């Protein structure tokens, strides 16, 4: 579409883009943009640290600029680096290339080459089938932050649906909190000693295919992933000094999954399910699903209140690699609909058969045109010694974040 802010690229960029001309990325610039954010964050943990090396507070700074260049015809290049400096956890201080993507827009297909992020799924609490990118776990335990994934992605959008083919030539290891970080187990995960089932280690070529389509009120996606599990199995081991640590083991898996959403009036029904082979000794099935319903203009105001109710199930039970093996989650999303876009999301995840539960509150408000203040509270309650989040039982968190968007 021809509606873009026009600009002239700088000399360095001209050289870089000139190199791409033989690859079909030619023609004059239609648009270029520079945007991004910088953020300062303070974390307070009201309960004293449980594990040695941990602090009760931390300060952190992160920046994520975004550069976008578009050719006439719609093909584009996107560059998004990310860096965080953290006062308490050396593992949380990290750099990542979130995006370095060429998108080629052709008559019959889209070709996306480079480092990118891809999201699959429909549910709100757990992103079960979202497997293309590795989780950047040190960013937030909500697993919504992802590391950039190198890929070649061919996308065919047709009348009969959209077919996406992915070749993932290089694997990214999951980030884990270090010795100084909270929200971790008693033993630190030693990412330097990661093990792989494949002899090719992180160079094992992974692949995926996804078919998605919209049929009236129904949106669905069906996928098959073959390759290195993004989710490691953690094995007890020792570091160089002989101290006990957890060693991440990345297995070769095969996953078939489905995600769908069905809209019916004010109701939005969602479901995700997967069947995975190769992780651990037994194949397993996991499922999450529920609904979202929004009340508009509550108590005679302009405010909207969304209610989310989702169930979570993993047939590995106690051996599941997530905390959500048999749980129910309730979410309340309040949108004030004011000029400052004030909003709040409250969540309660409750184990159905046990007392373990967690609560969270995420609230945000814009100040002026460019500043956003974000508050996040997390608390873990009723965790027994054999619960997944037992080691996080004293990691109740109060987090304040002030972000400048440019």
């Amino acid at each position, binding site marked *: *579409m*021809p*509606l*873009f802010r026009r600009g002239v690229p700088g000399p360095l960029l001209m050289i870089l883009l000139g190199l791409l001309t033989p690859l079909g990325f030619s023609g004059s610039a239609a*648009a270029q*943009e520079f*945007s991004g*954010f910088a953020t300062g964050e303070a974390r307070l943990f009201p309960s004293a640290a449980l594990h040695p090396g941990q602090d009760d507070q931390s300060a952190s700074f992160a920046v994520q600029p975004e550069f*976008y260049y*578009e050719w006439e015809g*719609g093909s*584009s290049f996107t560059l998004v680096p990310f860096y965080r400096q953290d006062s308490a956890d050396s593992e949380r201080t990290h750099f990542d290339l979130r995006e370095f993507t060429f*998108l080629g*827009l052709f008559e019959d297909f*889209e070709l996306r080459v480079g480092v990118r*992020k*891809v*999201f699959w*799924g*429909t549910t709100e609490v757990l992103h079960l089938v979202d497997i293309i990118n590795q989780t950047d776990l040190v960013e937030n335990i909500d697993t*919504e932050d992802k590391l950039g994934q190198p890929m070649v992605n061919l*996308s065919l*959008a047709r009348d009969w649906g*959209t077919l996406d083919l992915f070749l993932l030539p290089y694997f990214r290891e999951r980030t884990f909190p270090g010795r100084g970080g909270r929200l971790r187990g008693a033993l630190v995960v030693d990412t330097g000693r990661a093990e792989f089932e494949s002899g090719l280690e992180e160079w094992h070529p992974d692949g995926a295919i996804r078919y*998605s389509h*919209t049929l*009236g*009120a129904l*949106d669905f996606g069906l996928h098959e992933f073959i390759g290195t599990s993004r989710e490691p199995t953690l094995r007890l081991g020792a570091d160089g000094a002989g101290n006990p640590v957890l060693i991440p083991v990345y297995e070769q898996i095969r996953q078939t999954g489905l995600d769908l*959403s069905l*809209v019916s*009036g*004010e*109701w*939005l029904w969602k479901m995700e399910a997967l069947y995975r082979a190769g992780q651990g000794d037994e194949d397993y099935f996991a499922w999450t699903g529920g609904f*979202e319903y*929004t009340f*508009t*203009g509550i108590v005679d105001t*302009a405010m*909207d209140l969304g209610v989310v109710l989702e169930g979570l199930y993993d047939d590995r039970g106690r051996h599941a690699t997530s905390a959500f093996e048999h749980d129910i989650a309730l979410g309340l999303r309040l949108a004030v*609909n*004011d*000029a*400052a*876009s004030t909003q709040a999301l409250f969540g309660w995840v409750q184990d159905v058969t046990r007392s373990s539960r967690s609560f969270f509150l995420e609230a945000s408000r*814009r100040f002026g*045109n*460019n500043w*956003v203040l974000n508050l996040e509270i997390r608390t873990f309650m009723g965790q027994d010694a054999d619960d997944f989040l037992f080691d996080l039982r004293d990691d109740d968190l109060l987090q304040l974040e002030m*972000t400048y*968007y*440019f």
Partner: protein
Amino acid sequence: MRKCISLTLLFLCLAPGYLFAETPEEKGLAIAREDDRRDNGFADFTASMVMVLKNRHGEASQRILRNSTLEVTGDGDKSLVIFDEPRDVKGTALLNFAHKTGNDDQWLYLPALKRVKRISSANKSGSFMGSEFAYEDVTSQEVEKYTYKWLRDEIHDGLDCFVFERYPAYQNSGYTRQVVWLDKAEYRLLKIDFYDRKNSLLKTLTHRGYKKYLDKFWYPDAMFMENHQTGKNTLLTWSDYQFQTGLKDDDFNKNSLKRAR
């Protein structure tokens, strides 16, 4: 045969007026149909939008968006709205397939998560980006979405106008009725009074700065929505209208939503 029709027409023309006595409902519907007919054939357009939101103390905040719309024959239009400002929502995009009857299909793209989310369009009275415009005010207006009743003709802003009421024919509207001023010469929408569910005057929308495009289509430069109950208002200004840019169905799917800029 032709003679026969001519004779019939002649007879009808000479017949006493009461044979044609259109009910106010029929007249209202006829006006809406004629208005719709005059809007047909634009094919597609793109435009830039700026919304200035003011609260009762006069404090202002600004939204910048872009709109692309594709005309769909036989159904409601397809449109893509991309948010540029505030910067924290930059890249957020809304894809809407309007339907003459039933709910529109809507998808929202959240750039931070790279997520396309199907959303329910049933809550039509919800605020659009915190403004005084509700979703039902900004999505495609189809004849079938309302029933009509002509009220009177009157001079408004120096123009001879039809004044008619329309009543939402869809579920979950925030309005019981809307009173519309439309000028007779060019069918330009000049003003709408919105009445809430309790039938009290809620908002007034005024269109200003009409310009003619493609020698045929009248589009306003400014839409001013004033909320009488809260004292807030929103000024939506349109610029850079471009028509028949060659947009296709492919520019309005989930792939194009994901790469919307």
